[in-house]
């Protein structure tokens, strides 16, 4: 079944390569268009969205509620169909969801009948990876998320923060080309949320997964990412591309520094302006 209808004929490989504007681009979104059927004709939710995520980069998307940032991420994941435009993952137009794009959802999506370890191994089992290798990968990521002691527990026994840590491990264990994260910490309490942000940045510093992260929390976006896309409200468009010029090694204290606060206010300004325009 085709989830993503391609409007034009497939381009020959060489031209396709030229169209990607950078050779090390992992996610390349161009002219993305999304409309919903409404009572008075189609409603345009998103128009001309262009996004570029380089290999090993950490990119955040922020925007006012209803700007379609989650929809954008779900389209990249292949879970929703775009109405037009292209989504290219390393030279290939996407057709539906796939293991090359791992995702961590806002809601808890661990499989409740599986232990923590079985959850992490799920994607590897689907690939029919030998048991020994599965074990090795599970060990590694249990250590990364600091839940070795919980490997045989069921999700029902975990706190919200722990569940999301397992969800991150489960996605990373599959070694996706890009890790998509849809407001994964928004349901957590402030302290857990801060801990999760730190853990996420550390994971990125150590492993360099390519991450595309959607959030409505500007502080979170500034702390985590190397680049922020600010979207406008309906129809969603890229309003600004903000480079995050902050130190590479980040600790929570960074949030109190002048440079951090200035950048946070700058990004916030782009959004505030949009709200009351």
């Amino acid at each position, binding site marked *: 079944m085709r989830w993503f209808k391609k409007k034009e004929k497939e381009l020959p490989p060489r031209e396709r390569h030229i169209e990607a504007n950078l050779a090390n681009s992992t996610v390349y979104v161009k002219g993305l268009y999304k409309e919903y059927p409404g009572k008075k004709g189609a409603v345009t939710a998103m128009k001309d969205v262009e996004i570029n995520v380089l290999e090993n980069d950490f990119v955040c998307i922020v925007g006012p509620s209803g700007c379609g940032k989650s929809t954008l991420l779900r389209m990249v994941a292949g879970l929703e169909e775009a109405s037009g435009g292209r989504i290219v993952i390393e030279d290939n137009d996407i057709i539906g969801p796939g*293991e090359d794009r791992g995702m961590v959802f806002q809601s808890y999506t661990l499989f409740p009948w599986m232990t923590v370890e079985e959850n992490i191994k799920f994607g590897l089992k689907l690939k029919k990876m030998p048991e020994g290798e599965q074990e090795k990968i599970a060990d590694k990521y249990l250590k990364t998320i600091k839940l070795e002691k919980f490997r045989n527990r069921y999700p029902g026994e975990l706190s919200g923060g722990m569940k999301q840590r397992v969800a991150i491990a489960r996605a990373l264990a599959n070694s996706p080309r890009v890790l998509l994260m849809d407001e994964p910490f928004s349901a957590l309490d402030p302290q857990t949320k801060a801990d999760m942000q730190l853990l996420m940045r550390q994971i990125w510093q150590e492993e360099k997964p390519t991450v595309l992260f959607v959030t409505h929390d500007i502080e979170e976006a500034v702390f985590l990412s190397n680049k922020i896309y600010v979207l406008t409200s309906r129809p969603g468009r890229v309003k600004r591309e903000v480079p995050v010029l902050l130190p590479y090694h980040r600790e929570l204290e960074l949030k109190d520094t002048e440079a951090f606060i200035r950048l946070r206010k700058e990004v916030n300004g782009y959004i505030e302006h949009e709200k009351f325009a």
Partner: protein
Amino acid sequence: MIKVKIRKPISRKKYLLLAAAAFLTVFLVWSAVSSAGMVKEIFLPRPSSVLRYYLTAVSDGTLWENTKISIIRISLGFLMAVVLGIPVGILVGTFAKTEAAVRPLCEFIRYMPVPAFVPLIMVWIGIGESAKVAVIFIGTFFQLVLMVADDALSVPGDLINAGYTLGADTKQAVFRILIPAMMPRLMETLRMMIGWAWTYLVSAELVAADTGLGYTILKSQRFLKTDAIFGGILLIGLLGLVTDRIFALLNKKLFPWAKGGRQV
């Protein structure tokens, strides 16, 4: 100051005690009313008469025979409905095309009163054992399909999406995510449905049978043997309670992760 709080939990001991007290109260009221002679024996038999009926029916073997045949009928009818109804229900709750083809039809048929089918079934398949099984099947199948479909629909979309983004195809998403995720609710559905099956068993036996618990009740009515009517009804209630508890226990043992059939 709130003294009685909504849904405030009580201990298991207290729960059992209250449940037992309720049973005892009903029994005592029944004994008192019937023994005091306020109501004629023919309308409300004494507990002792019902007990006497049980003793004779057990000793001459008729009670066991009738219970056995009823249990066989209900098992066959229910099993057929389950074997066919669960796959169809899962398809309805999973794919919009099957839903469109099956749901409206099932909604239509399930409103048709099952006892009204009894004469038709007699014409079609006679008055043999298959007729009783057919009544139970018709009574439970269509309802079951719809309830199983709802169980399948209750599985959160992002649980399935998580599977897709981990590399599952649709077949794997159904067999390795959707079905395991809906199992606790499915068991709850079966627990509800077996109760309905008992109701339809009696409808089937009231009309076209010469054995079974339903038939025993009907025959006793002809001779105004209210003690036997009471005996039959109480026995069905007891069997229903036992099956219900078995299902509840199975659910607890098979799906410990689900905590009372709810999704975690």
